């Protein structure tokens, strides 16, 4: 089972969902906080769901306040960077570029892609953490090759 957990984690890096920052967080886990990464991830998905909702509402109103949208996305990008959510971060960057260009269509298109990446990452991490818990605390902080 631990091998399965390792393979799943490796695939998350190979497919570009996660980057080095995720490993940095795993290195912080200790006996006092054996589930630190899972807890931070849960915090991230809770916070980012709020931001997605804010952006959805702002876009639905039809009036593109690019400054406000950029501000929301700045927060979203910050959180995504902090947990190593690489693909989500990339979509955040694209969205912000469209904001700066005043490109509403680009924003809408990118936001749909961002929500997809976010949802995919959440499912994959939930699966990973579930298996990691079943496997026990051994399989952490080993850098993927």
């Amino acid at each position, binding site marked *: 089972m631990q091998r399965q957990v390792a393979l799943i984690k490796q695939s998350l890096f190979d497919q570009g969902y996660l980057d080095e920052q995720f490993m*940095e967080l795993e*290195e*912080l886990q*200790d006996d006092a*906080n054996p589930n630190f990464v899972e807890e931070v991830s849960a*915090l991230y998905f809770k*916070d980012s769901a709020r931001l997605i909702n804010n952006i959805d509402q702002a876009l639905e109103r039809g009036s593109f306040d690019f400054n406000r949208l950029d501000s929301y996305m700045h927060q979203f990008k*910050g959180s995504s960077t*902090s947990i190593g959510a690489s693909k989500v971060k990339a979509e955040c960057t694209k969205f912000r570029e469209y904001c700066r260009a005043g490109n509403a269509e680009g924003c809408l298109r990118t936001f749909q892609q961002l929500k997809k990446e976010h949802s995919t990452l959440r499912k994959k991490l939930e699966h990973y953490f579930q298996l990691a818990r079943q496997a026990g605390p051994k399989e952490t*902080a080993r850098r993927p090759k």
Partner: protein
Amino acid sequence: MTREELPNLAESKLTALVVDDNFVNQSIHQKLLARLGITNEVVCNGKEAVDAHCSGRNYDLILMDMDMPIMNGIQATKRLREMGIESKIAGVTTRANEGEKKEFMEAGLNDFQEKPLTISKLLSILHKFDFYVQT
């Protein structure tokens, strides 16, 4: 640096304040500090950081985010320096263009690190402030 090689600075009795409006970053920064044995507290914006000092609290190190509601990191850093606070303040932000960095440094920072903060970056901050000497 492996987990086993991380310094434990608990004997130094260092204290730190994390100033950041993002809960994910708060959690990570607090954990980074705790892993090194540094007692820490967290506030959500610059005004709360200023208020903490007005109430008599003091810290060896302040990790200051730049973009925060109510009072941002630049305003808070200026205010703290005007109050005579001499704590070491490290700006920690995703904004890294030279102009923004310069403005933040000129507000009164002692150091600046780009997010995401990592153990290596935190040790670099501590080393710069002579809180940690590499052996």
